[in-house]
């Protein structure tokens, strides 16, 4: 971790004022206590996983020369960090809860470890500006622990459904932030975010297929999203707009013989921060 120390110093010396953001608004009214279990597991796992992609190393060395990260980058990384806290703690609890059958355990420990590594990376990149984890209610009950997914850690079907919703949301969330990161001259951080974005898509594909017991069936149990179809109660906002077939102003059905249904599968759609935060709000205490 020595390689990261100069970055921390550089950030500590910079202007500590945090920009107001949608994330701040969404989280500040919540309890902002770090979840002890999640945080310590996070650091330990990061040490064990060890490897940091080349792009991230490039970011780190460049960050050393910066007096501070631009506010827009801090904002995006803290937004992503909230989602990664959510996912990592969800899988840590899920794996420990006994809800996952042994045959499927490798799937979820793999995803868990990835999300923990994402948290560790974002916290390293943000240094002292990293926000603490909110407290989560994975039943989507806003802290009642008796929300619509009340059996999330005792009913495997519910657990998988919530996992799918989180992963497909994560893909859309990172995608929506790419233009904001594009505006920062150090493109390594954009690249780093994209290398997480595509891993979230891999997770989503796996969980969608798992929900169909790996009998790939349209529209719910293929690795990709057909139109804006889903069979997860309360998850319509996660898939809203996925039926778009116009890209760069081109009405794609007019320029290819492939059917519109498959065209919608071929493109994933972004979500704004506000849209994502509305989706995850019930999960935040």
């Amino acid at each position, binding site marked *: 971790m020595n390689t990261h120390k100069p970055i921390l110093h550089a950030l500590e010396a910079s202007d500590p004022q945090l920009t107001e953001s949608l994330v701040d608004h969404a989280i500040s009214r919540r309890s902002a206590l770090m979840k002890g279990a999640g945080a310590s597991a996070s650091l330990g796992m990061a040490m064990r996983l060890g490897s940091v*992609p080349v792009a*991230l190393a490039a970011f780190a060395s460049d960050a050393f020369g910066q007096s501070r990260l631009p506010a827009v980058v801090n904002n995006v990384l803290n937004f992503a960090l909230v989602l990664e806290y959510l996912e990592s703690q969800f899988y840590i609890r899920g794996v420990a809860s006994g809800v996952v059958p042994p045959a*499927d355990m490798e*799937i979820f*420990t*793999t995803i868990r*470890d990835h999300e923990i*590594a*994402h948290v560790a990376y974002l916290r390293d990149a943000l240094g002292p500006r990293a926000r603490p984890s909110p407290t989560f209610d994975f039943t989507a009950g806003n802290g009642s622990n008796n929300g619509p997914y009340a059996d999330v850690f005792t009913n495997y079907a519910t657990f998988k459904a919530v996992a799918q919703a989180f992963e497909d949301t994560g893909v859309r969330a990172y*995608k*929506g932030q*790419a*233009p904001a990161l*594009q505006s920062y001259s150090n*493109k390594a951080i954009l*690249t780093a975010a*994209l*290398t*997480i974005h*595509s*891993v979230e*898509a*891999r*997770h*989503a*594909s*796996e969980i969608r*297929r*798992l929900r169909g017991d*790996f009998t790939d*069936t349209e529209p719910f149990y*293929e*690795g*990709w999203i057909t139109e804006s179809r889903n069979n997860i109660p*309360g998850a*319509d*906002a996660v898939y*809203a707009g996925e039926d778009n077939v116009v*890209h*760069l*102003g*081109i009405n794609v059905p*007019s*320029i*290819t*013989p*492939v059917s519109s249904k*498959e*065209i919608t*599968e*071929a*493109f*994933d*759609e*972004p*979500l*704004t921060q506000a*849209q994502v935060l*509305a*989706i995850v709000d019930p999960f935040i205490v």
Partner: protein
Amino acid sequence: MNSSQEPSSENLTSGPGGRREFLRAAGLAGLALSVGTGLSACSEGGNSLVAPSLTARRAIVNGNNITLDFSMDIDVLNYAYALEQLEAAFYINVVTNASFGAIFSANEQRILNDLRDHEVVHRDFFKAALGTAAIPGLTPNFSSITFSDRMSVLSTAQTFEDLGVAAYNGAAQYIKRQDYLTVAGKIVSVEARHAAAIRGVLNGNRTGSFAPQAFDPALPPPQVLSSASSFIMQSITAINT
């Protein structure tokens, strides 16, 4: 989860009918040229459809030598177009091979047919978006692949999908326009979904194979083109990367 409005994406890609997008697309895209591209195997040949002198903002095509200038967004899109041509041609060969029904289960056939559809969509989309600035249709060289052999097909599919993900991840840093970056993002995550599915089929669905790393690779264009070169008759060179 709350119900919500459809993505507004106001700072990203404008939706259908956005005036600026429409005007831009009208200028950029040669839609008529792309109609009826069809599902036929990619065999448009290496003949140059675009004379380099017609516009400065397009790939340099000299016979079978194509030079992509990564300082121009158009050529980053051409890079994507080249890779999507390769993938589409590959899956067309896979699903039209006489052995397809015999060597793959019904479930695997559904997956591979979907991948064919998606890659054809991507190919046709980039062709339409690039219009007259598009590089020519590439001639695939699949001599190293045995399309009647299940393992040969699946392992090549895994290579192509993982390479596609790494290629988009590595090319994003060169893109200047927000809407181009967003559309690349819309496609790369679908390539990642493909990669996960193919990896599951090939290596075991209930393993960690679907995502071998917490961070996917982001490969520089020259490295990607080097990996792809044996599958393409034309020679494609990246400059200003």
